[in-house]
């Protein structure tokens, strides 16, 4: 029986095709890796010893043994907590399957001394948007004037500022029965907003930077991959709404901006981050960082070898 004892553990999902790019690179580098898909765990036979820090098991024809003296890195492509609210149709059995296997996967944090891309504890903290704004500020980024409030408080905004960006303070992905909803950033003119009305939830009230050029900077270790996002017309709102109507153009970031990006990722305890920035009136503003940002879509639009860089980072000592 062939037992895999990996140096590199990859936690993913069977249909997460982005992971396949990294696996291809690891295979090409002839590394001892193991990929465990979360959706296949309910069909596995597996045990974890939290004191000896060993995991062994079988998933279909795959038998493996994870040992602390061998394991060097973990590529963790899994959520840190479940944002989706259970619907009434989820059976108690399925609720348990969802929650308990998620907890099992999070238990990998017993491996404290390996290289993580990214450690879920760090991801959990870094996903907090006010926290990341604070850290970005400490790293020297310019930040749009921002408050969180449950009403349209605008006193913190410059008098001359005509536009306001309204955003959720955490991902707002909604169940609408047979459809889904997502809250993107909205740009309003100041006069459109009633600053006396109380909202049922808090939200970001942020300086609206219009006109702007959107940037996406993908940080892998000490390397940055930057694109500007260009539409047929000027993009004033959230560029993600334009989906296939935009182009991604590789750019060279000023060295000081590159440094701030890599420093921020490091200060957040991460090895990877997808940073959104804006150029407004020739100034670079930090908008947010996504520790679990997707990147495979970028490779097909540019010649970035992000997969190679992730594999390299997983394998370096």
């Amino acid at each position, binding site marked *: 029986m*062939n037992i*895999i004892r990996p140096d590199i553990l*990859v936690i*993913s*999902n*069977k*249909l*997460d*095709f982005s*992971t*396949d*790019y990294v*696996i*291809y690179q690891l*295979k090409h580098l002839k590394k001892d*890796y*193991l*990929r465990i898909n979360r959706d296949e765990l309910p069909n596995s036979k597996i045990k974890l010893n939290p004191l000896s820090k060993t995991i062994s098991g079988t998933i279909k*024809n*795959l038998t493996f043994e994870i040992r602390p003296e061998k394991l060097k890195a973990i590529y963790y*492509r*899994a*959520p*840190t907590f*479940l*944002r*989706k609210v259970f619907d009434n149709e989820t059976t108690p059995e399925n609720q348990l399957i*969802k929650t308990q296997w998620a907890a099992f996967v999070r238990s990998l944090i017993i491996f404290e001394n390996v290289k993580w891309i990214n450690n879920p504890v760090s991801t959990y903290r870094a996903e907090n948007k006010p926290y990341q704004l604070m850290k970005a500020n400490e790293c020297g980024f310019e930040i749009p004037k921002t408050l969180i409030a449950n009403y*349209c408080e605008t006193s913190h905004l410059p008098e001359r500022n005509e536009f306001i960006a*309204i955003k*959720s303070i955490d*991902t*707002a*992905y*909604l169940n*609408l029965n*047979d*459809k*889904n*909803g*997502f*809250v*993107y950033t*909205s740009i309003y003119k100041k006069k459109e907003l009633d600053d006396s*009305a109380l*909202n*049922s*939830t808090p*939200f970001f009230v942020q300086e609206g930077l219009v006109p702007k050029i959107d940037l996406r900077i993908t940080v892998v270790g000490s390397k940055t991959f930057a694109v500007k996002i260009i539409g047929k017309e000027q993009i004033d709102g959230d560029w*993600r*709404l334009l*989906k*296939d109507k935009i182009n991604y153009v590789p750019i060279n970031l000023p060295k000081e901006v590159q440094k701030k990006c890599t420093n921020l990722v490091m200060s957040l305890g991460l090895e990877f981050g997808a940073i959104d920035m804006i150029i407004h009136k020739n100034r670079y503003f930090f908008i947010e960082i996504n520790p*679990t*940002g*997707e990147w*495979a*879509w970028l490779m*097909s*639009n540019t010649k970035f070898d992000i997969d190679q860089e992730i594999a390299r980072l997983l394998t370096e000592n």
Partner: protein
Amino acid sequence: MKNILLRNLEVFDRNQRTDAPAGFEYDNVVGAWVSKQNKTNFLVMSQSPDVPNVGTKKNDMETGEDQKGE
């Protein structure tokens, strides 16, 4: 009054699951989708026009991004 965050809510159809195209299968040991005829031929590296579209940002469901979300 309607929550301000719902004023411009983007509504879309529930995500259709993406499946690998015919001729490819997931290999547990390799840890990737490979050609049924040649396990060294990775789906994502193939020239097949049916390669799953990872080339768009899709609806950018930042619950940990798409399939990682749950």
